[in-house]
């Protein structure tokens, strides 16, 4: 560091160092502003009624339970579809497919990651919903299940690419050793490779689910937007309303500074905390397993 630096260079380096902190600053800012607009809720609405079972803002019912339930059910449905499918597809791409097929499948999965959610929502409304309605024989195709199917599609690219990276990171010697002992390729995958990559596969699952909970447009367009509490199997083929969809659908129409406005920010705060928890857990697992985490973000 003894070398003399020009003042301009010093300024540039100072700027770079300041920018390095931008991510931390923004996370804090987001948290602060959600608190600032969300906290008045707790002065305006009794805590007990926030845990109420009815969301009907016009009459002052701000029970968050149906919204949280809606998010849970639609995400659970998506996870049931996307996790087995995604992990299996990752296994196929990483371990089974010949090179040419791999080079074909990977960009296709990337295309899925790039599809705007509103395009999926549009197709959900126009094509998937009628299909769901006729095949289930329900009065409307705008159901939780329709949302789950779309969410599964949106979570798949994350699950496939993170799980595939984890499988790639398993040392070749593991596979060679297993094969040398006389195991078939499938036995090697099932008994050696997959268990060795399990923390990465778990991370992939969590990130995929995290993405599904936070998805907004597609869910809002196809789940029918009825905040109601139904038990698990029936809830799937009935309309529901997620936390994200509630914010997106109602924020445009509320008066700034009203109770409704503050409650919607509280819902945002809950979503922020959920994603914070999921990501801290997922990244701590990834940091532990290989001290990195670059691919988590794609």
């Amino acid at each position, binding site marked *: 560091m003894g*070398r003399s630096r020009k003042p301009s*260079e010093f300024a540039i*380096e100072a700027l770079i*160092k300041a920018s*390095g902190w*931008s*991510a*931390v600053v923004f996370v804090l*800012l*987001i948290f602060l502003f*959600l608190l*600032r607009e969300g906290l008045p809720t707790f002065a305006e609405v009794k805590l007990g009624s926030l845990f109420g079972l009815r969301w009907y803002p016009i009459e002052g019912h701000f029970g968050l339970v149906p919204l949280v339930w809606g998010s849970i059910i639609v995400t659970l449905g998506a996870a049931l579809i996307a996790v087995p*499918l995604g992990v*299996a*597809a990752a*296994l196929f*791409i990483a371990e089974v497919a010949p090179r040419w097929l791999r080079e074909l*499948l990977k960009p*296709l999965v*990337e*295309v*899925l990651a*790039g*599809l*705007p*959610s*509103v*395009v*999926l*929502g*549009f*197709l959900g409304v*126009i094509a998937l919903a009628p299909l769901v309605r006729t095949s289930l024989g329900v009065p409307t195709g705008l159901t939780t299940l329709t949302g789950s199917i779309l969410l599964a*599609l949106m979570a798949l690219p994350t699950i*496939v690419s993170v799980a595939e990276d984890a499988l790639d990171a398993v040392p070749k010697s593991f596979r060679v050793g297993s094969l040398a002992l006389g*195991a078939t390729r499938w036995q090697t995958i*099932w008994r050696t490779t997959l268990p060795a990559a399990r923390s990465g596969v778990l991370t992939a699952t969590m990130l995929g689910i*995290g*993405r599904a*909970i*936070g*998805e907004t*447009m597609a869910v809002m*367009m196809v789940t029918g937007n009825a905040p109601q509490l139904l038990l698990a199997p029936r809830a799937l083929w009935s309309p529901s309303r997620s936390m994200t969809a509630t*914010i*997106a659908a109602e924020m445009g129409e509320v008066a700034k500074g009203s109770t409704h406005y503050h409650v919607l*920010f509280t819902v*945002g705060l809950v*979503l*922020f905390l959920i*994603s914070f928890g*999921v*990501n*801290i857990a997922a*990244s701590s697992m990834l940091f532990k397993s290989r001290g990195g*985490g*670059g691919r*988590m*973000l*794609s």
Partner: protein
Amino acid sequence: MSRLDAKTSERIAFALLGLAALLTVAPIVLIVGVIAAKGGPAVSGEFIFAAPREGMRAGGVWPALVGTLYLTLGTALVAVPLGLAAAVYLSEYAKDNLFTRSIRIAIVNLAGIPSVVYGLFGLALFVLFLRLGSSIAAACLTLSIMTLPVIISTAEEALRAVPQSFRLVSIGVGGTRWQTIRRVVLPQALPGILTGVILGLERAAGETAPILFTGASFFLPALPKSIFDQTMALPYHLFVISTQVPGMPVKIQYGTALVLLVFVLSMNVAATFIRSHYRRRRQW
């Protein structure tokens, strides 16, 4: 019951895995195919260059297309310099300590925050607190922060891939740290950085939720005149015409979806092309 022999169970397992991969990619081909087939006939020069008419049931998508272009460029203007500088910091300056780790955790979290929460944040900070109003400026700033983690992490990966020996040679012949970064490391990492930037902007271009309350307009007959005006945007326009306007012709809906898809996927193709092109030409 005799157990399946190892060879048979392998064959069954591989078939199932292949089926899963097929089920994963088939919807993509189907989605792109259906939109291209049904939207193709709707798209014409008039559809692209005309404004919507008759309560959006006729005309084209021009104001929405231009709006999305503005939003994407504005987002790039903010997010690229900031994200690049942060990536340079992480790859070239930061030591591996608690502070750096907290930056990485913040980046991962920023990437995971739901897009609609970015919308709330943009509304609270840019629209109301900083009094930018619902405007292109507020929407671009919101989208920039959302795009930042993708740009930082891909750019950092590209910078780290430049071999250490390049830096040592530059320092060895008397270059300062910044000269080394600017003249040696950045040019070598440029293709990787560009790929990351395009992928980040692709996401911003297709997003709806963050701009819902920060700058997107339901319908505007004229193009915005300044960054403090609202604008139409393709994703929001598609949302509006597929859920909010009764009696909307399906042809226009599919046409709009196709224009949006081409806009976004052409960025995807560009990124893939840059990546494969430069990987082949790389000298290390």
